[in-house]
């Protein structure tokens, strides 16, 4: 059975605007893909530990020394909107 998905909810989580056509198509396609992917549960038993990285590394630290970094101008060079050397975004909260 294809998996049933609340497309509106998932799209909201992903901050993704979708047209009605896209929603219909995704509901159907994701249902089929997830049905096939659910096959992992046939063999993923409790005694098998999960793997996040094939070649695990941990606590990769560098020495605490200041090294050259990008200039402010470089950092802002691709921003859609800039004001006073900062990224500019539309309002985040309502102010009464």
């Amino acid at each position: 059975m294809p998996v049933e998905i609340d497309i509106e909810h998932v799209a909201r989580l992903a901050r993704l605007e979708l047209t009605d056509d896209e929603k219909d198509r995704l509901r159907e396609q994701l249902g089929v893909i997830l049905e096939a992917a659910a096959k992992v549960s046939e063999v993923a038993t409790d005694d098998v530990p999960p793997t996040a990285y094939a070649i695990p590394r941990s606590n990769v630290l560098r020495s605490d020394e200041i090294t050259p970094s990008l200039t402010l101008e470089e950092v802002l060079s691709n921003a859609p909107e800039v004001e006073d050397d900062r990224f500019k975004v539309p309002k985040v909260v309502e102010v009464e």
Partner: protein
Amino acid sequence: MTELCDRTASDLASALRAGECSAAEILESSIERIDAVDGRVGAFLARTDELAREQARAADERIAAGDAPPAAGIPLALKDVLSTRGVTTTCGSKILETYVPPFDCTPWERLKRDGGVLVGKTNCDEFAMGSSNENSAFGPVHNPWGLDLVPGGSSGGSAAAVAAGEAVWALGTDTGGSVRQPASLSGVVGLKPTYGLISRYGLIAFASSLDTVGTLTRSVRDAALLLSAIGGKDPMDATSLDEPRRDYIEGLDGEISGIRVGVVKEAFGEGVEPGVRDSVRHAVDELANLGARVGEASLPHADYALSAYYLIAPSEASSNLARYDGVRYGVRVDGADSVEMMTRTRGAGFGAEVKRRIMLGTYALSAGYYEAYYGQAQKVRTLIIRDYEAAFEAFDVLVSPTSPTTAFPIGAKIDDPLAMYLNDVFTIPANLSGMPAISIPSGIDGAGLPVGVQLTGPVLAEPTLLRVANALEGALGFDVRPPLLAGSGA
């Protein structure tokens, strides 16, 4: 007719040192080829002719002074997910159409220091998500072996550029087969090294635990040469392995007599085209003729790798692609508040496959489903690694087809995501396990299309893997040129 741009990098490196040609001449040959064929192939998203001319002049000076590394003066193409300072890097996406990175990725930085010559940035599936290059926002790439066919993906532009002589070698990226599968479909050599051997710094992320920079070349020797130039520890990438830069040419020509080769039995079943099966079996026979001890290997959980991959990769992608929010880079579509701006920006900026994977990954990671999907997929990843560890107790190298099919027509699978995902069934396990794998042309099938054979080795076994691949390449003697070039010299 064979031009300079049709020769291998190793051959050109010798010719440059013998004074038989200059880097400037090689570059002009490459540029002429791009002018002649790229209108039909569509391998490039950006050309850097003038920059390349400066770099070729500098390479010629170093060669004349006798201090040029082997990669100096060889025309290179970079997949457009690899950051290049001052040169647009779009990831094949509308959302990054105008993005100009302020820094270089480490592989290009190293090649630049070695006298590399960048001819341009290559087309690819959007954010490297795809197996046909049809998911690029800037149009498909056409396979030099048949212009109505896909070149494979997602590094389709890099593979096609090398096959068509537009670049002598190229870098791509391989998350589930994106270097090896297009190499197979386009008749070139594709190497995905051990995860962490080549730095990912400046590679725009798709699925960080799987993403690997790889090489597309005309010979195994060229792959070894290119890996020697870009491999090894990079402090800028926390997942980079503590391996020194080393010379992979050394030992390349050694014997392979007595090498234990395991033929993966699960990789010759249903869905594999007869032409592919026959060609790969022939390659196995050649390995036996070279003195390899051939036996049957089994990866019992191979059947589950595809399912695990299509949960893990989209999950990581949904997280990585959260950064495209219309604030720091890329396009912005205005909205009344920040959330509406982000939501509209992402809706307008991403293409169909990227949206599909973001949705898939967001769902697989969401409350209530995380354990059932992502958590279970991570366990399967453990099982796949165990399968390989068991197989490599009995064998030094495993053999399978690279892809179940040869190049297919543009449009044939685009409306059926599951059928498209099956292209990667034999390449995905090496990404899940982090192990090195290489695809080399094994021959052409009845329809005249190239077939690729894949060799896989254990972690950091690149020297053995390349030695076996080099010997096999020599025995197979594949030297057929794509029809695009077979006529009057393009």
